[in-house]
């Protein structure tokens, strides 16, 4: 393949076909359940970080100078710590369908060529919508869910794995770290050069590693029976990494009915096409070469092969591949919602519903994402402080809704342009339909209730605002039809088409002051259940006083009163004697060397001591304390690991939604966990210590002037400044209500053992003291 025209075609035309993918047969995902870890936990989950680091230290070449040896010790500690943090973050899947498949692909790639290397590698799935794969020096290779959704065949996955395997085989992670240290310190080839040159040199190294991984990964793929052409196609995934996994045409009719029609102005007719990022750009400042350059390297490799070089697209299973890919798409939808990317979740869900209409999982996920989106939209200007105001304003003005890119962009523009009430009504309409279809699904019922409350409380819309019949709609349509200029625009004459023309072209006065969303529930108003639910939401809205539901509308006095009541309500004795402590965090930051780094050794030791302190205090106070964290996983089962995943996800969601009691998260899972652990009270806590250099000049001057204080000043001069922060939050996970919130700031105070012990003891004592003793 030395023909330049052919190369050009490969480089330019391949990305065009990226979105055109067809499964052999649609996998059945009717009863899809979110992926969770299975089987026994692998050994690496059961060994402590310190042990892993100690084992890695044995690999250090003792002939090197001390600085380099120290750098490597630090590297092994840091990487093991980071990987373990990731392992127990709840984002990693083990022994599930995805992991089993990816391991089998790795087997097909390596077992024949390098069985010893295969034994050293562990593959994990990272539940992230980002398109990425990466390796660690310990042989842990992570592939994201986002990447799986974009693959077109198994051999592409094999190439991605091959690329990462080479990074591990060639020790790129460690070498890269050491190069970084050398560049920072100006050692070796980085000696006697400017900072900028060191930076550029360091990045050149990094790009060289990537090219080596591409080239040798290609060889690995070639020597297996996988199709080597997959390597080229894999770059298309990179070029379109920021685009959604689908570009299915978005129609607003998905959210509409015969009576509920959005104005056309919310729907952008002309959109920009998605453009792959594979131009020959300047990559001097990048750690990775540009996609264009990487593709070129592989094209050159192809040039050296005979024209008929080929291989199989599937060595494990084509059926399994498509199932995995679709499952990954289902997972990605949930992940978008989990991180607050509601529009992305809604669009991906919309695209998948084109393939899987009426799928229970997708229906649930769409309600969840729409509910999250409604909460966000309804609180756009409901700020409690300046930073949240700026955040609201920034997010509101950030996206250019007039020139969206791709179909997802069109949907985003639609949601952004739609008013809060209309969007809330659309979400409630969809949720109510789902509720009638799946009445046994308690989460759907809960989210539907939440949407009723949003409409009645946050949008302040009483039920009487909604029309029970279509007579006004027909009248508006007729009015539009009577106007000859407007009538010309009606393509097919129907009450709906006339109404669409009416809401698009008549002003509000001509619509007799009606708004389009007032016709949203003409069908639903015939359902006594719907009316009853709305009445309850309305009664709740009346009881709390909807007139000042927004924070900024309250007077300073009212705001202070509420703040004080919250403070009072969330502190003091709780009478809790049975509690689950989730992931007690202990992190030591050390900024004495300039940059703020995590002191991994102290953090690991601190964590163990913190947990021991908690247990000791609980035992002294007669409390039943259960610890749920990565350090006490059962060896034979992944149950606790999955419990940890569930509570971590719940907590993240809980934090994102402030006082909103009904979370767009599967609450039923948490109810089950509360029953299992025999308590509704779950505690999240973090003990953080900071160490930094003191500003010595003032102290030195002071020591000359204020001689009597010399002992204190001298102590301060020769010791670092230390701050300690202890944050605790306790939820009743069944009701979702926060019970206890405490943030203690101990600035300029040493992080001593006794201080930590006392604060843990004090916390446990406060929690265990009966409520009536508060006074």
């Amino acid at each position, binding site marked *: 393949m030395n023909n330049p025209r052919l190369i050009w075609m490969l480089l330019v035309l391949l990305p065009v076909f990226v979105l055109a993918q067809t499964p052999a047969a649609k996998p059945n995902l009717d009863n899809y359940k979110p992926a969770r870890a299975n089987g026994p936990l692998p050994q690496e989950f059961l060994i402590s970080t310190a042990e892993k680091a100690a084992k890695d230290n044995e690999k250090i070449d003792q002939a090197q100078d001390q600085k380099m040896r120290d750098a490597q010790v630090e590297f092994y500690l840091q990487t093991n710590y980071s990987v373990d943090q990731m392992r127990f973050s709840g984002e990693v899947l083990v022994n599930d369908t995805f992991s089993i498949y990816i391991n089998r692909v790795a087997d097909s790639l390596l077992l024949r060529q390098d069985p010893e290397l295969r034994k050293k590698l562990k593959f994990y799935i990272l539940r992230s919508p980002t398109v990425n794969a990466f390796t660690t020096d310990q042989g842990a290779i992570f592939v994201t869910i986002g990447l799986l959704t974009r693959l077109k065949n198994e051999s592409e996955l094999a190439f991605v794995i091959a690329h990462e395997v080479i990074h591990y085989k060639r020790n790129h992670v460690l070498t890269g770290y050491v190069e970084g240290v050398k560049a920072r310190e100006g050692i070796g080839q980085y000696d006697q050069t400017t900072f900028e040159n060191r930076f550029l040199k360091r990045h050149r190294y990094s790009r060289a590693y990537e090219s080596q991984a591409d080239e040798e990964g290609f060889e690995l793929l070639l020597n297996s029976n996988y199709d080597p052409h997959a390597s080229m196609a894999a770059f298309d995934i990179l070029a379109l990494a920021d685009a959604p996994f689908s570009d299915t045409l978005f129609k607003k009719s998905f959210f509409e009915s015969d009576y509920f029609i959005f104005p056309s102005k919310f729907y952008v007719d002309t959109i920009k096409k998605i453009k792959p990022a594979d131009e020959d750009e300047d990559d001097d400042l990048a750690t990775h070469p540009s996609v264009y350059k990487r593709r070129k390297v592989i094209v050159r490799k192809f040039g050296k092969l005979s024209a008929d070089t080929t291989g199989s697209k599937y060595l494990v299973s084509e059926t399994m591949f498509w199932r995995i890919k679709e499952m990954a798409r289902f997972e990605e939808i949930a992940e978008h919602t989990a991180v607050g990317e509601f529009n992305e979740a809604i669009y991906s869900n919309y695209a998948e519903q084109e393939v899987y209409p009426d799928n229970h999982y997708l229906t649930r996920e769409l309600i969840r994402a729409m509910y999250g989106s409604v909460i966000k939209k309804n609180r756009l200007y409901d700020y409690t402080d300046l930073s949240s105001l700026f955040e609201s304003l920034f997010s509101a003005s950030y996206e250019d809704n007039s020139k969206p890119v791709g179909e997802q962009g069109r949907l985003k523009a639609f949601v952004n342009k739609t008013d809060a009430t209309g969007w809330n009504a659309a979400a409630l309409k969809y949720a109510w339909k789902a509720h009638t279809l799946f009445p046994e699904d308690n989460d759907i019922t809960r989210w539907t209730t939440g949407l009723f409350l949003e409409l009645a409380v946050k949008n302040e819309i009483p039920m009487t605002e909604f029309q029970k019949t279509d007579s006004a709609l027909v009248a508006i349509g007729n009015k539009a039809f009577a106007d000859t200029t407007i009538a010309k625009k009606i393509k097919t004459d129907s009450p709906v088409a006339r109404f669409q023309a009416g809401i698009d072209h008549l002003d509000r006065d001509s619509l007799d002051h009606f708004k389009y969303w007032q016709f949203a529930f003409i069908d639903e108003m015939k359902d006594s259940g719907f009316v009853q639910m709305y009445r309850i939401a309305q009664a709740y809205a009346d009881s709390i006083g909807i007139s000042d539901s927004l924070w900024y509308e309250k007077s300073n006095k009212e705001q202070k009163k509420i703040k004080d009541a919250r403070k009072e309500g969330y502190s003091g004795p709780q009478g809790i004697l049975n509690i689950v402590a989730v992931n007690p965090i202990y992190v030591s930051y050390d900024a004495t060397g300039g940059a703020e780094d995590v002191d991994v050794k102290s953090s690991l030791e601190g964590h163990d001591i913190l947990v021991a302190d908690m247990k000791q*205090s609980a035992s*002294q*106070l007669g409390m039943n304390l259960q610890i749920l964290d990565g350090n006490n996983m059962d060896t034979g089962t992944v149950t606790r690991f999955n419990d940890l995943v569930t509570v971590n996800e719940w907590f993240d969601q809980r934090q994102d939604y402030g006082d909103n009691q009904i979370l767009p998260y599967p609450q039923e899972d948490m109810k089950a966990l509360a029953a299992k652990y025999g308590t509704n009270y779950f505690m999240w806590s973090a003990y953080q210590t900071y160490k930094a250099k003191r500003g010595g000049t003032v102290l030195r001057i002071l020591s000359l002037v204020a*001689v*009597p*204080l010399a*002992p*204190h000043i001298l102590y301060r001069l020769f010791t670092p400044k230390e701050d*300690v922060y*202890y944050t605790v939050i306790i939820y009743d996970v069944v009701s979702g209500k926060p019970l206890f919130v405490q943030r*203690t*700031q*101990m*600035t*300029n*105070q*040493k992080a*001593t053992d*006794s*201080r930590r*012990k*006392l*604060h843990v*003891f*004090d916390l446990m*004592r406060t929690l*265990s*003291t009966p409520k009536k003793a508060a006074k």
Partner: protein
Amino acid sequence: MKKTLILAALIFTAGFLKAAPGKGGYMGHRFIIGVEGAYAPFYTSVSDFFTKYNFQYGGNIGVITGRRTQLNLNYNMWSLGNNQVYNKGIESVYHKSDRIKGMEFGATLRTFKKKRGGIAPIGKFYDIGLTYTHNEYIIGKGNPGYNTLMLTDDFLNQIIFHVAAGTQMVFWDHIVANTGIRLAAPVLSLDSSRESKFLMQRTFEKDIFQVFFGVGVLL
């Protein structure tokens, strides 16, 4: 009977001092017995080291009364150098060997700073307290004596109000240490001798600004 009473008192005290986790303190330990030393530099004095740095030492017992409060009963004593210059006609006499001896006992309420995360007995604290003080002028051995007639009965009894700020730590679960600065001033003179004006001034120098260090045992 006497022995029985002593035994009962010991048992009662032991029970009283036993760690009671539900009542707070440091892991349930709420009682502290300690010693304290303080120095009060006063540079306008013209005399020697002991006059410039007025040393004071004593003992205290403390009880943690609440989540952020500790009540201390203190006893302190001192022996200050004399810096009085007497003008008797053409002769100025300065009696270096004379001392001002005194003692005080009082109560201090120590409040740990909520904003800085203080929980008794650890953290930054503020003190307020009242102390009864008694000072006496003691004539040194080398004093010729002709001035002493007017000084032998010199004494001063006062009530002192003090405030302090400092930090308190616990080491090895049982050792309490604290340090800080203390400001004090008399609020009431109970009774005094005819020359007490000098004593008043001299003890004021000691009390107005002190740097203190304490160490104790947590029971």
